[in-house]
């Protein structure tokens, strides 16, 4: 690891102003991606501004049909939340399947979506459930937030503070884990929302998480595993690597969408 300067922020404004004064600083939340990357000397931020101790970012609240999760809430916190379990059980199921217990104890929802790893779970939750990403300066719909692999709509120095999930009528998540990393090789969030059926796919797409319009249409007409499995996905849009071909991933999208429906 290269030398870096560590600062523990006490509030959101403290964090953003601190970062603004750095040469090439980064926010640090749970550090489950950033720290290993730094240890491999693949990232060398001049400063780390740790936001994981900011109390205001660690709340989960349910207000009517909206579940708001603070950006510094850990996956374990979401997985163990009875409020979330009652409102959006699919989110609890998704959070409880991220990484392993150590990762879930440190990793945060804000860190996950700000990083937008193409194989992470939370981007599928945000996009599939039609969430709104709250930052220190604005609110961004999930449809506009996830721009591409490891790319988001966040501006330089902008910080995720919370995610607002509208409560769906029904939702389910199903993940096919990469055998080695256990990240999603294909993860599908399927939801019946106030604005119709939404289906988001992570782990598989060439450009990161994406909405699957053919699946949305099919499940909108017939909310069943069979309907999902009948929908084909173009392999040309899928990633291929040593763990699976693009054809395999395209096939798994249908299978996992069906299982997401079964899980809903």
């Amino acid at each position, binding site marked *: *690891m*290269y030398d870096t300067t560590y600062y523990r922020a006490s509030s959101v404004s403290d964090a953003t102003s601190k970062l603004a004064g750095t040469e090439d600083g980064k926010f640090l939340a749970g550090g489950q991606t950033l720290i290993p990357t730094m240890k*491999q*000397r693949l990232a060398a931020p001049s400063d780390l501004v740790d936001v994981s101790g900011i109390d205001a970012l660690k709340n989960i609240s349910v207000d009517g049909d909206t579940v708001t999760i603070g950006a510094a809430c850990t996956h374990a916190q979401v997985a163990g939340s009875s409020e979330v379990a009652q409102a959006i059980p699919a989110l609890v199921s998704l959070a409880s399947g991220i990484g392993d217990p150590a990762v879930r104890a440190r990793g945060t929802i804000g860190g996950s979506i700000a990083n937008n790893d193409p194989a992470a779970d939370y981007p599928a939750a945000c996009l599939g459930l039609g969430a709104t990403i709250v930052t220190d300066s604005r609110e961004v719909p999930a449809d506009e937030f996830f721009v591409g692999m490891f790319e988001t709509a966040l501006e330089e120095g902008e910080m995720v503070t919370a995610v607002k999930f509208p409560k769906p009528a029904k939702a389910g998540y199903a993940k*096919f884990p990469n*055998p*080695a*990393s256990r*990240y999603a090789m294909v993860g599908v969030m399927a939801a019946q929302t106030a604005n119709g059926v939404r289906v988001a796919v992570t782990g598989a797409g060439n450009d990161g998480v994406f909405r699957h319009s053919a699946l949305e249409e099919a499940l909108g007409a017939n909310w069943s595993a069979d309907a999902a499995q009948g929908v084909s996905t173009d392999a040309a849009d899928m990633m291929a*690597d*040593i*763990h*699976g*071909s693009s*054809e*395999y991933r395209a*096939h*798994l999208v249908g*299978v996992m969408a069906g299982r997401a429906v079964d899980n809903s």
Partner: protein
Amino acid sequence: MTDQGIGARVLRKEDKRFITGKGKYTDDIVQPNQAYAAFVRSPHAHANVKSIDTSAAEAMDGVEAVLNGHQLTGDGIGNIICGWGITSKDGSPMNMGAWSALATDKVRYVGDAVAVVIADSKAQAQAAAEAVMVDYEILPATSNVLASMKEGAPQIHENAPGNLIFDWEIGNKDETDAALASAHHTTTMEITNNRLSPNPMEPRSAVATFDESEDHYTLYTTSQNPHVARLVLSAFYNVAPEHKLRVIAPDVGGGFGAKIYIYPEEIVCLWASMKTNRSVKWTSTRSEAFLTDAHGRDHVSTATMGFDADNNIVGFKINTKANLGAYMSLFSSSVPTYLYATLLSGQYNIANVYCDVQTYYTNTVPVDAYRGAGRPEAAYLIERMMETAARELGVDPGELRRQNFVREFPHQTPVIMAYDSGDFAGNLDQAKAAADVAGFSARKEEAARRGKLRGLGYSNYIEACGIAPSAAVGSLGAGVGLWESAEVRVNPVGTIEILTGSHSHGQGHETTFAQLVSERFDLPTDNIQIVHGDTDKVQFGMGTYGSRSGAVGMSAISKALDKVEAKVKKIAAHVLEASEDDIVIEGGEVKVKGTDKAMGWHEVGLSAYTAHNLPEGMEPGLKEGAFYDPTNFTFPAGCYICEVEVDPQTGVTEIVQFTASDDFGTIINPMIVEGQVHGGIAQGIGQAMLEHAVYDDDGQLLSGSYMDYCMPRADDVPNYTVSHHSTTCPGNPLGMKGCGEAGAIGSPPAVINAITDAIGNNNLSMPATPSRVWAALQQVSAAQAAE
């Protein structure tokens, strides 16, 4: 009687320190004035080194020295060698390319070291290593044998035209060809044995100290064979003469073969210690381990097996192409030859076997022995062939094996080995009963109702352990003898130290070797200490690999115990005024049989050292040594049956049952043996379903971390049903065969035979990942659609 002798489930003595975090590993060693080494490694698979600019690095904080390959060779440090010479069909010697511990003019794989930085701290060394500027002229590269053997392929070593290292053969070609030509049925397959990273939990590490005042070197290192390391470092690498070099392998956290060899880093640490007059430490990162630890397997074979009209095997012919990587590692040449092709008769009575093997250089890390070393490749080949032949012939795969089993011993195969014992049908019967093979079809139907494809596969493996008779391996090209040594020291108070040339890096020798002594002298294992891993303490030894420490290492101890026992009886007979023949040792006493005359065990020790009343002419003391050179290999064998369920929607395979019946001969500690079998099968399942070291066509390692290299986790493996059906090995005093590698050797074919049975498609290679299994299922669907 103590209950800690042979056959007792004694808890492992070493686990107290391991479980409480008190183990002492090489990286725990801190020497005064210690500096750290960081290596500058090639990011290219194949390149000429045009220049190295170290000026910026040398100017950085804490940097003691930046050293390169020209300085190393200039100081007379010798090239790294392969210690087993193989002769090609045409009588020519193998083409061993020069391997300098630091590359001078050319790099040949990603990770090849070109320079080293020695600095006050690890961070300073790493930072300076990044500041070393190497000007590379990038050359085309090859990463597999098929690419290396192509016309016009990049030439990796000047003295190996076409990248061919050797072209070797065993068996009788003409008779085998004739047998296959007249066969009633032949089965032919192309079989790939996947490449693996060894992944011991503890990465490699070295701490070297040069003492200028004594002109003496000390090396702490992660070695499975510290004496072999000293021998090679001294005799071939010219680091120091043997009496001026002490090698210590303290606690070592797993080896699996990867810690047999002497690598560039250990050599460089010793040399750099002399250059800088400081202790030099290096500990591999996990990334470096993926890049530089010798890999395993990587064979591509074509095989044909012929059967007569009664389904008896009449001939077996194999061609294998093996990837040895960019340089020849210490025992690399023996793995795809004498450790592999000599087992190609399997458990079967085959009159004609012929195998030829071509080995090639590629721009990948060297390939050498990895748990099983050649024998898994043989077992996989034979057992995939047997299962496939049974399907083609329409007969039960277990019964096809049974009718071809070797049943009389000794049995001379056409490929050197003379099997000494075994009851292959007994293992098959035991495994079939435990696996309830009779109930399989009902289970398959039940699984089908749940939408799952259920399959069952056999593997009847045999391997050769207890390596090895020194004269025999010498005649086959080995550069060393493969005996073992032991020394038994009975202290004046009767406690015992066993000095052994074997080395424990997970095997539990401190427990099992003590059990051997407990059995002999009826003493508690707490009174017995095992000393190993230090060339200053143990006179010489060949180390631990090839499941040899029981059959060879313990046999040496047994021989030394014979001598101690004889002397104890002489002393007791003299003191107790009885005949030696009437002396018995039991219950902590040395007694005259049938009388109440006895001495305490400790009194005999005291008598030996006070020497006040010894028989006329007897030397004082009670310490004996022995060398044991085996007369033959040993032949562990067994039957594994794997049962799987495949989810046709995803291609995910679940192993629902895994049954093992092994023949290891005498078992010292069943608990430890079961642990070895469990771990071995887990590694075999890893090879069969999960693990794959993959280079791209340019020689970049794609599986360079655990994000991409899939190690078996607890939820990837089932609960095993393990059992033993043993025959005594006639070749050594304890009747032992060895158990360390069997699980890894026997399990892969059982897994793949089960999966291919489930999916109805034999076209499946390891690792059988969900993606591959799904693709194989698609082939079945396509074929069905076409019909």
